[in-house]
């Protein structure tokens, strides 16, 4: 276990192992999410309350879910950065924070568009949307702080502290926003709870959720590889990789 942990800290080893996983992540991710989306759009039955607009759920919930869990992952990586000083953890934070922003933006956008047919306005100060907006601020803070420091180590450790402080705050923020707006809809879907939706609705949703997680894994690995190439550009293995590895290996990360 510890050996594995130690190895994981080595950018070179991580570069290789990520390359081996990526094709599978990409393939399975695309397959699952496309299946789920097609099922949800074409075959799932209409919701008796919201009509067809509920079909936005098949992308709103996965992006919102993922946006939140990416923030948690960043905080976990922050703990690893501070405690074990592992380089790869920081590479993860750097590469993944922009992805989190994109996901949060998507969740906000789809939520707002969904709001129009449901509530009659594009923006309603609904608890979940407001929480997502605050999450966006948290992400922007992390990115802003990360780019403010020119020294990579300082940036990494500062961002780690901020992410941990943010993650301690997320439950408080969620609770306070829920309290502030008690008129919100109950959370649509939780893995741990028995779903109240019919299976024809939640199975495709589950597919898309799983698929986007896998796709996130792929884009995270891909971006991490790029970041590693950038950071380790002075090392011999990166030089050799760039010279002898050839384009194809670098683009897909080998396999």
């Amino acid at each position, binding site marked *: 276990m510890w050996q594995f942990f130690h190895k994981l800290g080595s950018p070179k080893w991580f570069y290789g192992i990520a390359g081996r996983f990526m094709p599978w992540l990409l393939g399975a991710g695309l397959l699952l999410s496309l299946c789920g989306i097609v099922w949800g759009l074409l075959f799932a039955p209409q919701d008796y309350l919201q009509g067809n607009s509920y079909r936005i759920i098949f992308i709103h919930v996965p992006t919102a879910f993922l946006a939140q869990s990416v923030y948690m992952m960043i905080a976990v990586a922050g703990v690893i950065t501070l405690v074990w000083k592992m380089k790869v953890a920081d590479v993860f934070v750097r590469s993944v924070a922009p992805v989190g922003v994109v996901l949060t933006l998507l969740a906000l956008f789809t939520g707002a568009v969904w709001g129009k047919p449901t509530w009659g306005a594009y923006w309603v100060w609904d608890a979940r949307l407001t929480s997502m907006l605050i999450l966006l601020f948290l992400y922007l803070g992390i990115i802003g702080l990360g780019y403010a420091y*020119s*020294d990579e*180590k*300082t940036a990494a450790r500062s961002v780690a502290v901020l992410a941990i402080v943010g993650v301690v705050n997320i439950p408080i923020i969620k609770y306070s926003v829920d309290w502030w707006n008690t008129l919100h809809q109950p959370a649509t879907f939780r893995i741990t709870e028995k779903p109240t939706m019919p299976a024809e609705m939640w199975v495709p949703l589950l597919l898309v959720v799983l698929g986007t997680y896998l796709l996130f894994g792929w884009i995270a690995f891909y971006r991490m590889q790029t970041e590693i190439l950038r950071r380790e550009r*002075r090392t011999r293995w990166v030089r050799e990789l760039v010279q002898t590895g050839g384009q194809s290996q670098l683009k897909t990360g080998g396999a």
Partner: protein
Amino acid sequence: MTEPLQQADHLLKAQRLECERDGRTLFRDLSFSIVPGTLTRVEGPNGSGKTTLLRILAGLNDNWSGHIHWCGRPRHKQWDSVRRNTLYLGHRPGIKGVLTPMENLQALVAGRQAVSRDVLSRALVQVGLGPWQNVPCEHLSAGQKRRVALARLLFADEPLWLLDEAFTALDVEAVAAVERLLADRVRDGGAVVMTTHHQPALDDMQRILLGHGPGQPAAEVSDEPVAEVSHG
């Protein structure tokens, strides 16, 4: 990692220190020990990492790798003792302009040492600030402000002093006086590590030589030690 302890007569021992800053290696494979009763001068051109080294020794900078031992045991296991037994004076020594020399000293010393007002007052007199004791420091000259900071050395009881550019802005007599103070301290068994721009008139100095200057990109730093300790 832990080697068998040798005679632990050193206060501080650094083994294979390496420090990289903004992608540039400042020093590598730097080993030395600081023994009571010695004066060590860190030497090197601008940008070679003298201040960084002192900050590492003080425990302010932790972007380094290697081993630092304090009195024979790894330093990170005994921060309390390290902090209490090390006095670090940076080139910005923490003197507030709106406070008087007396108030400044009181605030700086409060957490370290129980020193009476009387002692502080005598220290200020002896660094030549007797008449200025109750004048806000913003009205003092740069050299006088430096004297406020250095007044701490007149009663400091820490065995290890780390002085970064302690002589800046002092006039010739003051420099000589501080040099005498350091020599006395070393004779009494204290240890001093310092950086200075002038060549101090002190015999029996240890030297830590750093770097060849900022022109060297990190990629080209060879494996030969860029730093060494010689006894002068």
